[in-house]
């Protein structure tokens, strides 16, 4: 009987992994000894990291969308059906349509869900750019604001040492916001206040989740007239009075509240019972080297879904994917996983509307910040405008 590999999730992690599995296991796939199936809740694939550009009217929705089938190798069976229940003990999943899919190997790459409703008043009064519709709403507000105060907050998961979605995004969007408002000619009438919570993974009272970057941020912000504030953990929001309250006892007024909201795993992962994460966040306990789900050697966890201390971002999936592929291939061929993930994350940070800064780090080494350049910005724009689709196909 053929070995069945099931990939759940049609985001960047699942897509590149399914394609790379077919490539890696091509002899077995072409002879019918291995099958690869992908389950996704959407027939379309969105380049989600670029939703933050939507907030600055740089991208439209259609520019960020491709048919999922067009990104997959034809050997992959692609099924549009949302997973409703994971049964890790029985090696099967049940979908919303009622279908049951058994597997020999499972890749869970279901992403995370921005959940502003988890903070009182944030959904009503706050904005964010992690989904398309909220990013559009934020874009309309940023395009029209003439004066006032834009207050930026960042919320970490309650699970210890787990970061928020895309670690660098709050800095990226703060710097983009500054330049966007300057281009509009209204910057002098708008105060930008960047805040960071007291606890950011293993750090306390910083402005970023890594120390070296945290230390260079004040001079950057000061050079641009951006105010910043440590120790502001968003506790609740009063939508009527437009005031953000911190858990530390502070209160700040705003005209626009640009937030990095709380996040959680998708419903099916939450309901699987496999997570011990506090606050019902649902992160799957993941081996930091093999990327296997704790207690289930045939289940691999990628990207946002796991409880690892690395960024919940596409640049993380890009480095985890080869490990998952190698481990499934070696398990099929020789009976045990052979690859180890070193925590590497590679990305190109958008530092303002034009400049970019390639960055990389791993479990042992933090990002070493260096001056953003136009060339770095062009590289990021190239990723946004085309290279991403080669990455999704597993070509880069």
């Amino acid at each position, binding site marked *: 009987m053929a070995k069945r590999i099931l990939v759940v999730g049609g985001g960047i992690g699942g897509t590149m992994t399914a394609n790379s599995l077919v490539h890696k296991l091509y002899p077995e796939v072409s002879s019918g000894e291995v099958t690869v199936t992908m389950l996704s809740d959407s027939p379309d694939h969105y380049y989600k990291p670029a939703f933050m550009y939507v907030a600055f009217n740089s991208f439209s929705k259609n520019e960020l969308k491709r048919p999922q089938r067009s990104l997959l*190798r034809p050997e992959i069976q692609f099924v549009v059906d949302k997973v409703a229940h994971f049964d890790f003990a029985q090696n099967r999943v049940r979908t919303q349509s009622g279908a049951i899919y058994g597997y020999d190997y499972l890749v869970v790459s279901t992403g995370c869900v921005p959940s502003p409703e988890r903070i009182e008043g944030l959904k009503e009064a706050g904005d964010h750019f992690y989904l398309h519709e909220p990013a559009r709403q934020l874009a309309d507000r940023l395009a029209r604001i003439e004066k006032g105060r834009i207050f930026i907050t960042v919320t970490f998961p309650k699970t210890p040492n787990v970061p928020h979605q895309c670690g660098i995004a709050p800095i990226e969007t703060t710097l983009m916001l500054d330049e966007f408002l300057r281009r509009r000619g209204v910057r002098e009438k708008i105060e930008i206040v960047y805040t960071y919570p007291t606890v950011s993974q293993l750090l306390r009272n910083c402005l970023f989740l890594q120390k070296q970057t945290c230390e260079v941020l004040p001079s950057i912000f000061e050079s641009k007239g951006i105010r910043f504030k440590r120790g502001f953990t968003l506790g609740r929001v009063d939508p009527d009075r437009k005031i953000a309250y911190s858990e530390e006892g502070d209160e700040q007024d705003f005209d626009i509240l640009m937030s990095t909201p709380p996040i959680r795993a998708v419903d099916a992962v939450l309901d699987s019972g496999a997570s011990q994460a506090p606050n019902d966040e649902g992160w799957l306990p993941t081996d930091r080297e093999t990327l296997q789900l704790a207690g289930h050697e045939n289940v691999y966890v990628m990207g946002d879904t796991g409880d690892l201390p690395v960024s919940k971002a596409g640049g993380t999936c890009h480095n985890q994917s080869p490990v998952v592929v190698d481990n499934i291939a070696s398990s099929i061929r020789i009976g045990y996983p052979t690859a180890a993930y070193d925590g590497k994350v590679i990305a190109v940070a958008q530092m303002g509307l034009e400049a970019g800064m390639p960055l990389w780090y791993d479990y042992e080494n933090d990002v070493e*910040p260096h001056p953003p350049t*136009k060339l770095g910005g062009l590289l990021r*724009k190239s990723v946004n405008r*085309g*290279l991403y689709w080669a990455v999704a196909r597993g070509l880069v």
Partner: protein
Amino acid sequence: MTEMSTPATPGSAGPAAFQDPDTQAGIEHLAAKVAPLLQTNRFDNVVDLLSLVADGIDMTDERTIEKLMAAFEGAMAAGWTLGNAARMAGSVAGNAAEPPSLFQLARELRDPEVRRGLHAAVTFLRILGRQTGP
């Protein structure tokens, strides 16, 4: 501390850098390496090339990248689709114990994916004809 906000101005780190013995040795090695080019004025071409690259970077903007990447994605996606079809078709045909009979081939036409592929191929030829016509 201030690397990101205030990039070093050219020459600001110069004197200290040149006092480093390893740097001095490296510069001497580099000078010896490029000496033939310098002595024959051919190093001018390298400088001109760097200047051209720098000009290109200065002139490139978001719109340029958008056009270049659209061309890249178009070519990449077309190559990917055709390559996938060729690879999988070759594999399926190669794995068949016997070549299919004409009757079996005709029955393949009942497969909607085959019909969609034929439709795409015929449409491709029509568009090709349109673009090569008068």
